[in-house]
């Protein structure tokens, strides 16, 4: 399984050097990557259907408990197949959609990165690796949403999506770490055993809150839903892939994955039911007012995600079975509708449903795909959507007695909205008379209309043979979510019962609404008057507030004068250290235990004082720099006296180089001007003296603190045994704390790049003048 995750990552990075090549006819290799991965997972279907899980383990950072543990069960398999299967369609589709685009290579690099990240999320058996991949999906989707980077709206939507999902990521990380610490393991398959312990833990409400914020931001639940409609600025293949089947379902995946670990409590159920329930009805109503095809689809997606959250909240076996089926139902029809929308946009250059009409005459196969998807989304009998809807009603009807009516009413209302939205997006653009303006529109290239047609037909086939899909596939998904055996046998026909009546009523009401109410610009504008109280507006205000606060802070604290920075830093350090010293109580100095001063220490002290005097009184920058380096060299000598040759050497070379750097910079500065008046001199003297005194006090205190030498003893004993080195300092640097050193070198490199680009960039702009 590791290879399926790595394939995309590696190919993605290979697109950097081979980008030019992939823009030619060689681009045909790209769609075969998801094809291969899809076949790989398809091959696993019978294995998983037997109820076995495939597990793969690879150490990554074992000392931190972060490992590549992969596990394939019913839930991961469903998602892996959706990611690779719909991915295959999208790759073929996007290759035609973006043919000739200058950033064609870049687009596929992002898309591959995203696919790998999604696979990583659903396959990880370690919650920390899951989190890493989770963040990777946020980052790669940021690039995909902002792909049209010359448009401002596109950039701001990408930023919005990243800030919402990234913020959710922080909460999620906190939640996951709490789970891991309480249970003592980060392995998901081991966490199942800790359900009772986690649920009864006092921090349980906090965990649920953190985890839910993570999942809700990703899966666009109210009040974080608004980034999803905004993200429709992305090229349509991206919307079809990210926002129908994969990225937004990651939150649902997380909730489903944690249902057997954290679920089955009132808190969990109520939270998910309230948030999911509100989101589903809220978004369904919103979708009725949209005139943009992608807007309709975005809101109906949010609504569908709400349904999934709601069902997970209900949490009965019925509901979990419904979740497993509805994920598949929704992915199939929504990806189709998105791809159809892309075709319409591509051919007619508009997505406004008040203008689109009669397109069936020019693109029949697209219409068929679209119609089938719309029927499935409406839950017409013999489509897979019908099965899904049945299960949803079954779940709401069989929940607690007193809740039944309300939950069912909510589900019915939402579904009526979804029926209308599906018809509007899938049928309306094709019905009626073809206007003059669209006469020249034509059927696009095959690879654009075949993928949606296949997905739509699958939606019907699965509907006709639900038993096969249920037994071989979604049964294990439901088992994985429920964390135990579920009784599921999907049937097309249940006989005449309440569920069927509800289904019929939903369909009828939805169709009636479709004919009765037409969205217009005016209605949309009327709705937008309420934007002031929307969470999107609040979020933007928050963003503006943060920007204002930070610019105020920056102007106050970072005024651009080095001397003022120094003053603030040192004053702050003085306050902090002084407070800590004061807490420690009085210092006793035991003069008898101090080693007597030797004559060379006196000598160095004398040189130090002399250099200091020169620094304070000199009128030349060069002199003061040289005097400063004299102080540095004196410290070197101290290090050598007290047997720290490594420190001495490093201090010596660093001091030399710093002096050189100073001289180079000073050379370019204007002549020395004295800014200081008497007041400033006195202030600085006080601050400097204070700092010196505090540092001296700390040193004296350290002398009389009982020292623990555990750590140095450990390094001393093990340097040769474990790392084969006799120089302990160096062994610590390159081995024991090697990771630190590694990152420090990266920091150095970044600093050098900063200096280089700062100076070179300025040079270029001056050259332009």
């Amino acid at each position: 399984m590791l290879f399926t995750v790595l394939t995309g990552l590696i190919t993605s990075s290979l697109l950097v050097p081979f980008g030019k090549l992939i823009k030619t006819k060689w681009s045909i290799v790209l769609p075969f990557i998801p094809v291969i991965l899809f076949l790989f997972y398809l091959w696993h279907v019978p294995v998983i259907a037997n109820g076995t899980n495939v597990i793969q383990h690879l150490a990554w950072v074992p000392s931190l408990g972060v490992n590549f543990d992969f596990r394939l069960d019913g839930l991961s398999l469903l998602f892996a197949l959706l990611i690779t299967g719909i991915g295959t369609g999208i790759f073929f589709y996007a290759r035609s959609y973006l043919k000739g685009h200058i950033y064609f290579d870049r687009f596929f690099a992002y898309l591959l990165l995203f696919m790998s990240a999604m696979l990583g999320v659903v396959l990880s058996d370690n919650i920390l690796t899951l989190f890493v991949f989770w963040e990777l999906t946020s980052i790669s989707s940021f690039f995909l949403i902002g792909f049209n980077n010359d448009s401002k709206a596109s950039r701001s939507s990408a930023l919005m999506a990243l800030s919402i999902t990234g913020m959710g990521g922080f909460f999620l990380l906190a939640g996951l770490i709490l789970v891991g610490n309480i249970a003592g393991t980060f392995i998901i398959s081991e966490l199942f055993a800790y359900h009772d312990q986690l649920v009864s833990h006092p921090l349980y409400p906090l965990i649920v809150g953190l985890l839910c914020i993570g999942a809700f931001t990703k899966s666009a639940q109210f009040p974080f839903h608004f980034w999803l409609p905004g993200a429709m600025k992305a090229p349509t293949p991206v919307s079809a892939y990210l926002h129908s089947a994969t990225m937004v379902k990651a939150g649902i995946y997380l909730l489903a994955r944690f249902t057997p670990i954290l679920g089955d409590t009132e808190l969990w159920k109520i939270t998910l039911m309230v948030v999911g329930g509100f989101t589903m009805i809220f978004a369904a109503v919103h979708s009725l007012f949209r005139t943009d095809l992608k807007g309709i689809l975005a809101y109906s997606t949010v609504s569908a995600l709400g349904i999934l959250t709601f069902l997970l909240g209900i949490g009965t076996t019925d509901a979990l079975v419904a979740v497993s089926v509805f994920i598949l139902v929704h992915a199939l029809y929504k990806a189709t509708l998105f791809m159809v929308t892309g075709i319409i946009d591509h051919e007619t250059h508009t997505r406004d449903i008040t203008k689109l009409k009669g397109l069936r005459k020019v693109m029949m196969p697209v219409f068929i795909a679209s119609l089938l998807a719309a029927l499935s989304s409406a839950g017409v009998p013999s489509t897979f959507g019908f099965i899904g809807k049945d299960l949803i009603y079954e779940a709401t009807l069989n929940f607690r007695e007193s809740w039944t009516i309300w939950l069912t009413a909510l589900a019915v209302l939402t579904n009526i909205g979804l029926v209308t939205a599906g018809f509007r997006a899938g049928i309306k653009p094709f019905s009626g008379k073809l206007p003059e303006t669209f006469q020249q529109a034509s059927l696009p290239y095959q690879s654009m209309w075949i993928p949606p047609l296949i997905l739509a037909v699958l939606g019907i086939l699965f509907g006709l043979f639900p038993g096969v899909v249920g037994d071989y596939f979604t049964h294990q998904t439901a088992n994985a979510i429920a964390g135990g055996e579920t009784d599921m046998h999907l049937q097309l026909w249940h006989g005449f019962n309440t569920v069927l009546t509800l289904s019929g009523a939903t369909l009828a009401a939805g169709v009636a609404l479709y004919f009765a109410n037409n969205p217009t610009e005016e209605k949309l504008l009327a709705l937008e008057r309420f934007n002031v109280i929307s969470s999107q507006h609040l979020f933007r205000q928050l963003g503006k507030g943060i920007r204002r606060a930070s610019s105020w802070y920056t102007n106050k604290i970072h005024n651009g004068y080095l001397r003022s920075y120094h003053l603030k830093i040192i004053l702050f350090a003085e306050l902090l250290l002084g407070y800590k010293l004061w807490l420690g109580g009085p210092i006793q100095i035991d003069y008898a235990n101090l080693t007597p001063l030797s004559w060379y220490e006196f000598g160095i002290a004398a040189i130090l004082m002399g250099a200091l005097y020169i620094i304070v009184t000199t009128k030349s920058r060069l002199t003061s720099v040289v005097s400063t380096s004299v102080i540095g060299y004196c410290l070197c000598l101290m290090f050598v006296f007290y047997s720290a040759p490594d420190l001495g050497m490093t201090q010596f070379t660093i001091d030399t180089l710093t002096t050189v750097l100073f001289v180079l910079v000073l050379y370019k500065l204007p002549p020395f001007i004295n800014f200081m008046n008497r007041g400033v001199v006195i202030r600085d003297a006080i601050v400097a003296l204070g700092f010196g005194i505090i540092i001296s006090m700390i040193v004296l205190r350290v002398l009389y603190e009982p020292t623990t030498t555990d750590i140095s003893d450990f390094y001393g004993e093990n340097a040769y045994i474990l790392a084969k080195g006799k120089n302990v300092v160096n062994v610590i640097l390159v081995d024991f704390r090697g990771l630190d050193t590694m990152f420090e070198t990266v920091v150095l490199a970044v600093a050098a790049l900063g200096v280089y680009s700062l100076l070179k960039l300025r040079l270029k702009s001056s050259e332009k003048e």
Partner: protein
Amino acid sequence: MNSVILQTATRYLLPILLLFSFFLLLRGHYYPGGGFVGGLVASIAFVLHSFANGTESTMKILGYKPLSLIPIGLATLTVSVTVPLLFGLPPMTGLWLEEPIPVIGMIGSALFFDIGVYLVVIGVVLTILFTIALNN
């Protein structure tokens, strides 16, 4: 700076200092020294040369921009950290050859780690100093 004495001296000092920096780098695991100090000494050698003969002529000796040493160094570091993975060990495990090599001594992944640090340090120091020096 136009001093014949310094120019003549650096002609001999540059190779000696570079040799010394290698010496520091190689002995680091057993005696005072290491990649960081070694890199700093090597940088000082080049800085000294640039003082005597001008930065342009030092750049000529180097052949490449010092900036290019940074990625090479970081790559060396990364390789030394990840090589144990190929042997099925966690990253950063110290791997050592059984027998010491004459002159150099024991060879292990830590040595390559140090070489990476050495190269990055030279790259960083020279990039910063030479960019400033040449930026008129």
